[in-house]
């Protein structure tokens, strides 16, 4: 199910408690996959994803209706995500208690195998991305993993879209060099 931004904004503004679960469903994959490229361990990415949505909910609760209607949801959510990833070292160790969850569908063996391959792939790329500058890494993830536009990324990182574009471009050049080096060694 895909809900367009405008509709989702109006639903969140009109009945937050009813709309928020759908907002989580729609956005959690993006936030988790962004966090996976920014944080060293998978568990950290899980914790931060959880934290992002808890923070987002509390913020949405406090905003007046007009602000929620006009909110650019994706840049806003990734501003929170990027901040929490940067601060994660400080918030470590305050992990909430895990609860036993009933009625969670266990993935079948094929799904598990498939996601194990993806986990390895993501980890390999996280290491390569780690060799770029923070600006290059953040903008590449926002552009090519999360899929934000250059204008949206400009809003998240607080730099002009043109600068973002050249950060992405230089970062990709560097990744290419890194991969060539990997192949020849």
């Amino acid at each position: 199910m895909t809900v367009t931004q405008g509709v989702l904004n109006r639903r969140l503004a009109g009945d937050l408690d009813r709309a928020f679960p759908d907002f989580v469903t729609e956005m959690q994959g993006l936030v988790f996959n962004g966090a996976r490229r920014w944080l060293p361990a998978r568990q950290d990415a899980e914790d931060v994803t959880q934290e992002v949505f808890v923070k987002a909910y509390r913020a949405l609760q406090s905003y007046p209706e007009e602000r929620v209607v006009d909110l650019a949801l994706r840049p806003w959510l990734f501003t929170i995500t990027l901040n929490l990833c940067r601060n994660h070292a400080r918030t470590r160790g305050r992990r909430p208690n895990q609860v036993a969850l009933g009625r969670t569908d266990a993935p079948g063996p094929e799904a598990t195998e498939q996601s194990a391959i993806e986990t390895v792939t993501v980890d390999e790329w996280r290491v390569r991305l780690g060799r770029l500058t923070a600006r290059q890494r953040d903008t590449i993830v926002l552009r090519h993993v999360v899929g934000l536009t250059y204008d949206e990324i400009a809003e998240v990182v607080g730099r002009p879209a043109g600068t973002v574009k050249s950060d992405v471009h230089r970062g990709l050049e560097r990744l290419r060099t890194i991969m060539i080096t990997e192949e020849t060694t």
Partner: protein
Amino acid sequence: MNQDFEIPDSLTAFEPTPDSIKPLVMIRTDLADQYTTVAGPIGDLYVGFTSLGVTSIVPTSDESMFLDVHAGTVGRPAYRAEELPSRLGNLLLQSFDTGKLGKLPVDLRQLSAFQREVLNVTAGIPPGEVRPYGWVAREMGNTGAVRAVGSALGRNPVPIVIPCHRVVRSDGAVGSYAFGPLMKKTLLEHEGMSSELFEPGSLQYVGSDTTDVFCFPTCRNARRIVASHRMVFRTPQRAIDAGYRPCKVCRPG
């Protein structure tokens, strides 16, 4: 030679989101409840809760029955937990022991102001005593709302700790209960009421000819009246006509 770098699919590959994230977010924002089983005063119970308090109590040991009732009265998803948070667990046991809500927090966000007020008045009925539906309506200043009171009590999400079992029909019969009249009787007997007190026709008003005060028969003041000074009235009006005034504790009329 200055060819653009082609983005490998593996860079943008999506790792599936762990199933646990959404439920944990829902629980931490109180948009979903957790539940567990505890030993209640007359058998095992399922208890639902959020960080704000107890949200549902269902006297059953059948999990799917609990989930059905919880969905009907609360309407939020519920996830199983190992146990109650210790503070909530202690306050719940205390509530069972004393027969009073006490400091136990309850989360009744989904109810209307009217429903909450019905439960608020009902929470004030002491253990071992009963009041008619009409009394609850009158305490709320809305004597005509007897049926609405009955249906609000029938949908009480937190029975036992909010003692809807202590509200009976105006003739003294126990009346209906969400979990059957038998359980209502069992709860009342557990609180020390003798079964003849809730037979149909049993609700009479009891006065003392030394104080000229009349009460509901289960009021703690009525139970202190010795047989030689005990006067019985069929209606509050008859007591008033005989020069008696209503008790200030049980407020019978």
